């Protein structure tokens, strides 16, 4: 077992990755997909604009990238802090 100070650092690093991921999560869906859509109106994508694409396709693709990136980063972090499963 590792001591508590290492666990604290592990948890802080985890929370940091989560926060960054959630900022991107909100930006592509609530941001690009809804609130910032007027700003992206000039960028046309196949008969509509970038905001429409993010609302119906892009946000889902980014969500996928976020989850796989999180799994990959956390599995590395587990090993670095010696808290991985044998």
């Amino acid at each position: 077992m590792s001591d508590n100070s290492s666990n604290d650092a592990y948890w802080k690093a985890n929370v940091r990755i989560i926060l960054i991921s959630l900022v991107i999560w909100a930006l592509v869906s609530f941001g690009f997909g809804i609130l910032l859509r007027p700003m992206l109106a000039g960028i046309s994508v196949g008969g509509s604009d970038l905001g429409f694409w993010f609302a119906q396709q892009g946000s889902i693709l980014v969500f996928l990238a976020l989850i796989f990136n999180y799994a990959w980063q956390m599995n590395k972090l587990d090993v670095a802090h010696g808290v991985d499963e044998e």
Partner: protein
Amino acid sequence: MSQFAINLMFVGASFALYIGIAIWARAGSTSEFYAAGRGVHPVTNGMATAADWMSAASFISMAGLIAFTGYDNSSFLMGWTGGYVLLALLLAPYLRKFGKFTVSEFIGDRFYSQTARIVAVVCLIVASTTYVIGQMTGVGVAFGRFLEISNTAGLLIGACVVFAYAVFGGMKGVTYTQVAQYCVLITAYTIPAIFISLQLTGNPIPALGLFGDHVASGEPLLSKLDAVVTELGFKEYTAHHADTLNMVLFTLSLMIGTAGLPHVIMRFFTVPKVSDARWSAGWALVFIALLYLTAPAVGAMARLNISELMWPNGGISGEAVTTQQIENEAEYDWMATWQKTGLLDWEDKNGDGKIQFYNDKNADLQAMAAEKGWEGNELTKFNRDILVLANPEIANLPSWVIGLVAAGGLAAALSTAAGLLLAISSAVSHDLIKGAINPSISEKNELLSARIAMGVAIAVATWLGLNPPGFAAQTVALAFGLAAASIFPALMMGIFSTKVNNVGAVSGMLAGLTVTLVYIFLHKGWLFIPGTNSFTDADPLLGTIKSTSFGAIGAAVNFAVAYTVSGMTKPTPQEIKDLVESVRVPRGAGTAQDH
């Protein structure tokens, strides 16, 4: 071979497959019944989660919701997928580490409170039961349409099949049938979509076809669609018309609700390791995205197809389709088929032998109608739920595709129903019977009571499916509201805060639950009794916030109350702080106790 025989063959073959899996995957222990012995590969679990999650609503209704509203209903796409990010980052790995069998068990242990556990169980049972009604009615409708048997007989056959694999196989049987059901439903959804995308845009990938060019006109598909629907007096398809605040809150409520639905969360108890739970959430979203990236294309293309079928001679400036064409031409056969179900209807109001389809609420079109002697929209009924089921017929696809869609619709409804029933039966046998009434119950008897609870839950769900309460359609908002306002915040605070204590958690859950229920009842009627509502969603109590969007606010109230009350009451004991510490690190998950 007749269409009926083809449908029967596809549905029969898929059911034989599910029963075969049931015989192969019998559960012998409570661990197998509740968590499939924790031996499910993360990719397999991801596929099962996708089938578990994608219900009759995703398969049958969602493309229709998007087709008839356009951009504004993007909330469903972002909301029902964005929840998986919350689930993967905030809940799944930690709950897997905790290593117990039910969501309520975590809440009860972490907040060292039997009351908290019971509140969670009640929310879980209410949310899952309301959700299962829709699945059972969906099974009845699909049977009724495709196998031409009565709703009741269809529902009873569906219930028997679920009984076979859920009661005997438990989570183990449900998991492997869900994998099979996913394969059936995704094939059934994408094959017609690929055909239609090829017909309209020449691109075999519907998600790319949606942003491609319309072959017949050479214009981008979405520009063409915007032009066609505005010509008929409807709102521009790709434009933003909805209230922005409500749209944001609605999307957020769907996300939080998704992450808080117990039948989805409990799927992550079945994988061997914490790291598997993280990967598995990603795989689940991959399999869900295959349908969700296709759905907006299906919606947009079907909308274009229908508009052009009703105005086959160069749009609204040409002549409308004639009743003779509808009766005699093969490409209009689907209209007669669906008219029989009562979900589609038309009426030649002005007696000119043609069916004019347009928005008769639009002033410009009213002026045009007065000039041309039209007496209102003559496509009098078009239930948006038939869109996906009728889509292969509308696009004139071969009859085996229609049989496949029948099997797919049933797979979507049955897989979600089984997941919900499993959540209900494990809450009853594990949380209520073992947790509260008889803690010393033997494993054998607990397994027996889980099976009896499952049998009773299926019977109740079947009865509710046969006699759906008038408010059935409203209850989905209730299920998401409850999950968002009570379960998600309690789980998240249980993991991310050591300070939230028993009193705080219970007050938070009750506060979130109460404000959400009151807000829904104020708008939909108390206990959904018509006429007892003081407000409507068209003119809501708080600004523009509809009752379906309130789950996010309920969740915020839950968080606020829980932190405030915890600050004023006795701090959490050391052993609970240790429990939170241990849940946060993956090491030791393999040795976690199953009891």
